[in-house]
């Protein structure tokens, strides 16, 4: 698998870099004094990571104030200042999910088209299989081949799957899934849903319905609703989170496709405006490519972005 493995390994090491390792814009600033030009370079690298103009501005202002007051003078200090700021904003949730007191813990997975929901479900299924019996519900009855896609994963991972016909009512599939999970004494039920744009009101209402149905079969279900966010998403990611929060009361985010060069910096704004934290990150297309979100290496990877690479 040669080069691909290399790419993921590079990311892995990117995500576990120690605080002192300086790359990207801070690599260039190492051992140097901060000046206006340096602040601009830092600003560019935050923008480049999709942190967004508003948040970037406030991060840079805070840095500038510290620099003027003399508490930050070198590149290293600037980096630490910024990293602290970012870590604080992200909070630390380390993949913790709410679990059912008894009976199956139900996870509902939602998101816009093509974000990575189904693949993330395969990854979550693999992860939770280690803890107990997992059942999947294929409630994406809309997209061509969607049910079969999840079926392939279920087979590869050796977990049960409940499905309806293509075109069936997704809420009915959710219902069947919940009943089967109870009947089969499952520990986890993970429900796949069709991709939908957050502006499609009717489809968002459908999500609320799926949620209600799950709760009718299993008390307090879904215990955890996860929004899958594509790391390449731009500022629109915030709108996605807001709408999915309103319709499906999402508890956390799976930040998928972090194995590319995108960093999903909009997750910071999401955290700030909605309070919803990132809980897992996707780092590839295989079931094992899921990691618990850890703000430390994430911030390192975010700041390690080399602005020069875009030219």
């Amino acid at each position, binding site marked *: *698998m*040669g*080069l*691909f493995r*290399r*790419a993921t390994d590079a990311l892995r090491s990117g995500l576990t870099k120690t605080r002192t390792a300086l790359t990207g814009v801070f690599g260039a600033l190492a051992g140097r004094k901060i000046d206006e030009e340096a602040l601009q370079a830092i600003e*560019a690298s935050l*923008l*480049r*990571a*999709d942190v*967004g*103009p*508003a948040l970037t501005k406030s991060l840079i202002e805070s840095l500038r104030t510290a620099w003027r007051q003399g508490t930050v003078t070198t590149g290293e200090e600037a980096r630490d200042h910024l990293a602290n700021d970012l870590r604080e904003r992200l909070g630390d949730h380390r993949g913790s999910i709410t679990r059912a007191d008894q009976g199956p813990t139900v996870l509902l997975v939602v998101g*816009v*088209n*093509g*974000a*990575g929901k189904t693949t993330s479900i395969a990854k979550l299924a693999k992860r939770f299989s280690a803890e107990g019996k997992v059942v999947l519900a294929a409630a994406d009855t*809309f*997209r*061509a*081949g*969607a049910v*079969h*896609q999840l*079926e*392939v994963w279920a087979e*590869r991972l050796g977990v049960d799957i409940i499905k309806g016909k293509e*075109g069936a*009512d997704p809420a009915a599939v959710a219902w069947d899934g919940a009943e089967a999970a109870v009947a089969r004494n499952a520990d986890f039920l993970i429900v796949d849903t*069709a991709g939908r*744009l957050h*502006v*499609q*009101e*009717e*489809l968002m209402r*459908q999500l609320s319905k799926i949620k209600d149905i799950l709760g009718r079969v299993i008390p307090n279900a879904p215990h955890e609703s996860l929004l899958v966010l*594509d790391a*390449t*998403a*731009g*500022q*629109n*990611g915030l*709108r*996605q989170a807001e709408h999915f929060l309103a319709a499906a009361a999402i508890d956390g985010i799976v930040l998928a*496709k972090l*194995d*590319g*060069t*995108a*960093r999903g910096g*909009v997750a910071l704004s999401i955290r700030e405006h909605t309070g919803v934290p990132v809980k897992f990150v996707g780092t*590839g*297309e*295989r079931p094992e490519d899921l990691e618990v979100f850890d703000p430390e290496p994430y911030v390192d990877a975010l700041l390690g972005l080399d602005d020069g*690479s*875009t030219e």
Partner: protein
Amino acid sequence: MFEMLTDRVGKSLRNLSGRGRISESNVREAMDGVRTALLEADVHHEVVDSLCEEVVTEALGREVTKSLKPGEEMIGVVHDKLVELMGPDASPPMWVEPGPTIVMLCGLQGSGKTTTCGKLAARWKNEGRKVLVAAADLQRPAAVEQLQTVVQGVESTGRGSGQVAFHGEPERCAEFGRAVGEAVTVCRNAINRARDEGHEVVLLDTAGRLHVDDELMGELEAIQTAVRPHRILLVVDAMSGQDAVDSARAFHQRLEVDGVILSKFDSDARGGAALSVRRVTGAPIVHLGVGEHSDQLEDFHAERVAGRILGMGDVVSLVEKARDEVDEAEAQKMAVKLAEGRMTMDDFLSQIKAIRRMGPIKQLLGMLPGMGAALKDMPIDEKQFDRVEAIIGSMTKTERTDPDRIERSRAKRIAAGSGTARDEVSRLMKQFDGMSQMAKSMLGPDGTPREQPAIPGLPGVGKGNTQIKSRRAGAKRGKGKKRR
């Protein structure tokens, strides 16, 4: 999708024009708002900086500071820049003789390649072409089946006299990373088959891949070397952020992309990616994807999108859609009828049907100048149109040609026949009267408009009302399946 940007640009420029005399630093100040707006729209930060610099230079060159309407002048400059950045509009696809013309789609995971294959196939079928679509994504589970279903859907329900066939070799699928190289074989086989069977065009659907994944990027290069596609199209998600520039650049460096298709344009993303991808690849944006169905593909026009960015509406699209649906001679006949006050219920019904074929009403209204932002949150009940159609359907022939004859007892019968309420019938009669009146006053005797046409009172546009639902974009009646 560009509404917010519109608001922002408009505001900063309005502030500018409100000040009377302005200086060079005022111009720069206003550009700061433009810069933030463009960044929020996900235009790449380097593109933003150079764009703003160019606009300032140009604006000062045009002496906006001395202009009486500096705001408008600046809008003009920004607009021209946006058009320049996104244009020129794409050249039509190149068909090679002898065929088959080979077209390859590529892009990141989940960007919309497979769906776009269906859309392109539908378009070409409509043009009467014989199309073969090949499944060269052997990696994503059920990708072959997905494409097969999409292609079968287009072949059985798509418009036009062409044909769409599917080529797939599902037995070559393998787990991630294990099928690299097999895709080349599938593509080669598909092209041989196309030659044998006389297909005019072969469309290759490839697996999604990251631009930093050397092995998979290598696979694309191998396909390119093996089959020499005539057109390579990159599919980019309209919701993408800053990274769109880096991935597009990488695909372009390795494959020389001929065109870009911007998918998921039906989202509310502001789509700054369109600007930056165009800038870094130099490849034209050829289409916009505006939904999940095969008929939801539109042509890209820089003027149009730039106009939308600046709140000038999307009249070009509207006119184009209308042209697709309405026969010109018919329209002229109708206009004369309207002018003479001879419109019948049948005419009214066919007008409504023509409008609805153009797309969801909300989307259409959003294209009218200055309406986009205002209509964003207005609930529009498409079901009311269903009821109007049902009411007219329950009228007798004479009632339709002479609606004045419909008095109380007839209205009661019509309501019962259409399963609607009596006052719904009388409301429709009133709307019909109002429309005939307005048409008469707006049109000259030859059916040409007397003055600026107003927006006619459309049924279905209501105030906030919880039971009112807007139909999901694209779930047109009789087309595709409904998602409920």
